[in-house]
């Protein structure tokens, strides 16, 4: 009886949201990166250097993410894709644009000017600090090797 019941509950329980979320993030994030690869090849075809093509690809994604954030589409897409839109540079762009747009009423200096860094600030800070730490190690390693 209990065995039967266990089987029944396993069969009828909703799939774990973690599995569903992760699958969505994998598929959406993967698709976004594959599309970005296509975009990069397009820029390479337009005679850009490898570094520039990669950067302009990021800039294009940032532009699209900011535009869709302003139009209100990004939020609904992100609710579906989760980390699939958050972890690519689109998530960073959204985290810059959304608080900037939403804090207009607080003015352009302490509203937009400050809130635009809500997420960008920590990312830039810890990117710079870890970069400097790595730089110090690399600098010493160069001297002693």
């Amino acid at each position, binding site marked *: 009886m209990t065995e039967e019941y266990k089987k029944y509950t396993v069969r009828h329980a909703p799939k774990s*949201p*973690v599995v569903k*979320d*992760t*699958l969505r*993030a*994998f*598929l959406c*994030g*993967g*698709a*976004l*990166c*594959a599309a*970005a*690869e296509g*975009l*990069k090849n397009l820029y390479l075809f337009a005679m850009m250097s490898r570094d520039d093509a990669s950067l302009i*690809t*990021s*800039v294009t*994604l*940032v*532009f699209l993410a*900011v535009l869709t954030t302003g*139009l*209100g589409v990004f939020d609904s897409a992100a609710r579906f894709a*989760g*980390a*699939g839109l*958050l*972890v*690519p*540079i689109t*998530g*960073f*762009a959204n*985290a*810059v*644009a959304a608080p*900037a*747009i939403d804090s*207009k*009423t607080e003015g*352009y200096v302490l509203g937009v000017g400050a809130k*635009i860094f809500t*997420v*960008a600030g920590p*990312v*830039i800070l*810890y*990117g710079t600090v*870890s*970069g400097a730490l*790595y*730089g110090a*190690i*690399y*600098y010493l390693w*160069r001297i002693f090797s």
Partner: protein
Amino acid sequence: MDYLYAFLVGGALCAVAQILLDRTKLTAARILVGYVVAGVALGGVGLYEYLVDFAGAGATVPLTGFGNVIAEGVRRAIDERGAVGILTGALTSASGGVGAALVFGFIASLIFKDRKQK
């Protein structure tokens, strides 16, 4: 094949973040910061460039790729300018992506309506 590898690696990096979001108390902002720092570390020891060669945009588009760009920039700045590069490298190399996000974000704040007011 390039597209398949970009899909698989990019997707996997996103999937890991999704599991962290669902299973731990880490917020989205903390995960973004963690990914950038992880990218600096992996780029610093020279591992991330293999991933970039293998997966292209699948490695450069996720925020770990942003961290890798910072590590590469710091290394280049130190090679070219010496110790000053420790301080200039990170922000110089990050300037493209950050500049785009800030400029576009600011313009968006001029154009679009505050969504909280609706």
